């Protein structure tokens, strides 16, 4: 199926929905194909192919709303799908706030090539995927020194997908994208029977941008070795240096209450805070939808709105909520788009080593485990592990600890931002330092 085929199918589906009585519809048709191989301890563990297709339809019928999806795209099946979906929608209670967006919001679509599709994906074959996985394991084993390895698993995966979106009031868009990933995880055995696992991964839109296998192997070995002999941390308040890979957890909790649904349903900590300082002046967060090859890049959002670069926070001041078209109508405000894409920060100029050196005494949090947060009041509590910082250096590892507090307060205690954005993720988070954070241990 080409992009044009998908677009044609979406147009036909939109017409079909109207023929069955829908006043309006938003249709998305997508397909994707990917292969994933997993290699473990010298041999293939699993090779898996995935070929997905789907059609989803948001229908507006007599002031009522429903959303349905199906993967049965045979013409007779689609005909029945729309007949039933429309009939069902008629039975619901009306919702005066539902409807297609004002078409003016579709305008101004950026004229840029996001370069999200790497055509080399179609040429990757499974023998080469297996060879890459085998090579990753070999690199790990050749460079692991006396690491007490129990098992090494490596993975190679790539996907390509296309989607077409059509709204009955004029929106049309087609997008294609690829993604490639590699990962390796190492399990080691401690004298007391614990088997800690360390891993590394890389994920990119284009194969050529992936981190090299040598870097993945080195990183996985270092992250695994650093867990050996982990003890416990005394309960107390610490300066914490959060690894750039782990920062996303703290950021996700902080941003969740910006959503229109959260605000309208009166469960948002950030209700009434627009224009106020809700975080440290060191936190500036810009949403950048048009980064070439960006993992989160897109030209339109789920409402069809043309995406634009916009600040979420500037020097800690809240600049926008994330309100979609529906909740904007419910709240009688202008919609701001619910989607975020790639972030850029007000990056500093130091890396992890330099920040650890500056902090002197504290803890380095390498990873979070489980936990949750309360978007209405801000409480957050999450398991964590990492290493003690002593004399400006990473010292002994610890595990089984927990960080807790209020995520609003935690981001107000942001004391330094690194200059080392993580390339394997759309948050592009740097190492972050927070002061006076409660950690539970023994």
């Amino acid at each position: 199926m080409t992009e044009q085929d998908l677009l044609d199918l979406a147009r036909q589906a939109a017409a079909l929905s109207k023929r069955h009585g829908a006043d309006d519809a938003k249709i998305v048709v997508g397909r994707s194909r990917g292969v994933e191989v997993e290699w473990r301890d010298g041999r293939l563990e699993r090779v898996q192919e995935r070929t997905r297709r789907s059609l989803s339809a948001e229908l507006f019928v007599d002031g009522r709303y429903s959303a349905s999806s199906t993967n049965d795209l045979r013409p007779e099946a689609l005909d029945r799908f729309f007949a039933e979906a429309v009939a069902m929608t008629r039975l619901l209670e009306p919702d005066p706030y539902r409807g297609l967006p004002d078409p003016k919001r579709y305008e101004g679509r950026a004229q840029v090539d996001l370069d999200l599709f790497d055509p080399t994906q179609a040429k990757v074959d499974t023998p080469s995927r297996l060879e890459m996985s085998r090579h990753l394991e070999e690199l790990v084993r050749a460079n692991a020194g006396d690491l007490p390895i129990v098992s090494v698993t490596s993975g190679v995966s790539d996907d390509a997908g296309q989607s077409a979106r059509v709204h009955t009031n004029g929106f049309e868009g087609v997008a294609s994208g690829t993604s490639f990933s590699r990962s390796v995880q190492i399990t080691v055995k401690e004298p007391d029977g614990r088997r800690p696992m360390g891993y590394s991964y890389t994920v990119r839109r284009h194969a050529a941008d992936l981190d090299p296998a040598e870097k993945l192997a080195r990183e996985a070995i270092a992250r695994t070795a650093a867990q050996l002999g982990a003890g416990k941390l005394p309960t107390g308040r610490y300066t914490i240096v959060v690894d750039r890979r782990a920062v996303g957890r703290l950021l996700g909790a902080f941003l969740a209450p910006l959503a229109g649904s959260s605000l309208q349903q009166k469960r948002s900590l950030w209700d009434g805070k627009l224009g106020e300082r809700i975080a440290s002046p060191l936190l500036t967060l810009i949403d950048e939808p048009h980064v070439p090859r960006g993992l989160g890049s897109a030209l339109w959002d789920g409402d069809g709105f043309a995406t634009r670069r916009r600040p979420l926070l500037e020097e800690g001041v809240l600049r926008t909520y994330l309100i979609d078209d529906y909740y904007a109508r419910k709240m009688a405000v202008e919609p701001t788009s619910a989607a975020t894409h790639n972030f850029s920060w007000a990056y500093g100029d130091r890396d992890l080593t330099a920040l650890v050196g500056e902090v002197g005494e504290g803890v380095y949090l390498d990873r979070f485990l489980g936990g949750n947060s309360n978007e209405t009041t801000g409480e957050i509590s999450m398991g964590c592990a990492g290493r003690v910082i002593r004399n400006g250096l990473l010292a002994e590892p610890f595990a089984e600890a927990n960080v807790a507090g209020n995520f609003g307060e935690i981001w107000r205690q942001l004391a330094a931002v690194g200059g080392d954005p993580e390339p394997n993720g759309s948050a592009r988070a740097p190492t972050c330092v927070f002061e006076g954070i409660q950690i539970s241990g023994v």
Partner: protein
Amino acid sequence: MSSDPRQRPDGATLTMSGFAGATASQAALDPDAGLWGLAYFERFGVNEALLRAAFDRALMHGADWAELFFEHRVSNSLGLEDGAVNRAYTSVSLGVGVRVVKGDQTGYAYTEELSKERVCEAAATAAAVANGPSRSGPTAFQVQKHLDLYQVKVPLSTVGVAQKMPILSRIDALAGAADPRVTKVRVGYADSYGAILVVDSDGHLSFDRQPMSRLTVHCTAEQNGQRESNGCNLAGREGFEFFTDARVERIAKDAVERTLFLFDAETAPAGEMPVVLAAGSAGILLHEAIGHGMEADFNRKGVSVYSDKLNQVIAPKDVTIVDDGTRPFDRGAVNVDDEGNVGQRTTLVEDGVLRTYMHDRISALHYGVAPTGNGRRESFRHPPVPRMRNTYMLPGPRDPQEIIASVKRGVYAETFTNGQVMIGAGDFTFYIKTGRLIEDGKLTRPIKDTNIIGNGPQCLERTDMVGNDFAFDDGGWTCGKDGQSVPVSLGMPTVRVSAITVGGVNKG
């Protein structure tokens, strides 16, 4: 097309999710509710000739065995917000996954088009895992025995939106009227139905119809300018009869009470202390602390903290833990698992001794034991792996009051939202939504939003008091592993863990 390709998960997770899009249908999407076995899938073009052709392809390079997993699922949900049932979601999913296995090695492919040509293509893709001479597939198919744990009284396929809507409105009215501080109520109704057909290259054929019903309620309340929100949910493998007045009343009441409870609650203190787990959903501790570590795939790979512990004492004598797929109408019940093995009750830990892991077919062959019926998968898009069903601890000898009274200063944990575990290191967490402090043997101040972190084997050793009470939890728990979600359930007597790290905040 999702924008952010998934990253490697840090470990297995368990969530008490809100109502995440799934379902709303009208009657008769499934016009042939009486169809059984191959006949159910015949209307989608599946017949014995297709099965034979697919197995010929799947075994074209030898392989030890192969399997076809057909699935048809219709999911419906309805949502109430701001007083109106004004959104419905439905999805239809149909497809077949082909698995080809050689030793521990798996080839897997699926297709969403059930034509002979496409199914054979998927089979050929999966077959590439082997490299020997071809062998022949089954000539005849024998129907396998299975349990009958969830007979449906009112098939979900026959119930229209109009019959479902009053359920949501009633819950909204009850919750809204329960207390003047309640400002917002959201209600989610979800059901799903459909069938699976598992056929292997030995000609074994298993079939199951799998209903699921679920309710979710979220409340926001306001008191003196302070806001709190909380929710609760209920689920079971039942038809429309699941939505009884009793359940409707209970979920409305619980959602309001759990929300209002938070106004007076604070985060627990920080540090290591005794924790008493209330009977019921505290089974989340078992799921995380030991359940995942006893799934045999992790053990055959040597990456579980329990890898060398079979037949060893891993807990005090009062501790017996089972994983049970045979409880009627239970969210975690399976008549047959997703590999066609009959549903079972498996004793994992007996009087403190680790007796068996939870197996899928690959691990059972690896260890030379019988499958335990734990081979489960999210859908035809995924190969099965060992998964829990309903994991619970059997009651012990202690009076629950005595257990609480034994604690000088600690935490009593009552409701939970989610947990996670690192399989190899054994470190696990679970998040307490509500509970109380225990001071001088008595339940005192309410607490909320506190994570607990411990180490599985150590925590089991410290489970030093087991209550003589017991409760199953009928919440809508969903377990995540290898990027696959499956429904599970939990149960627990009151227990004491003598020391574990409470992730709270110390004042001052």
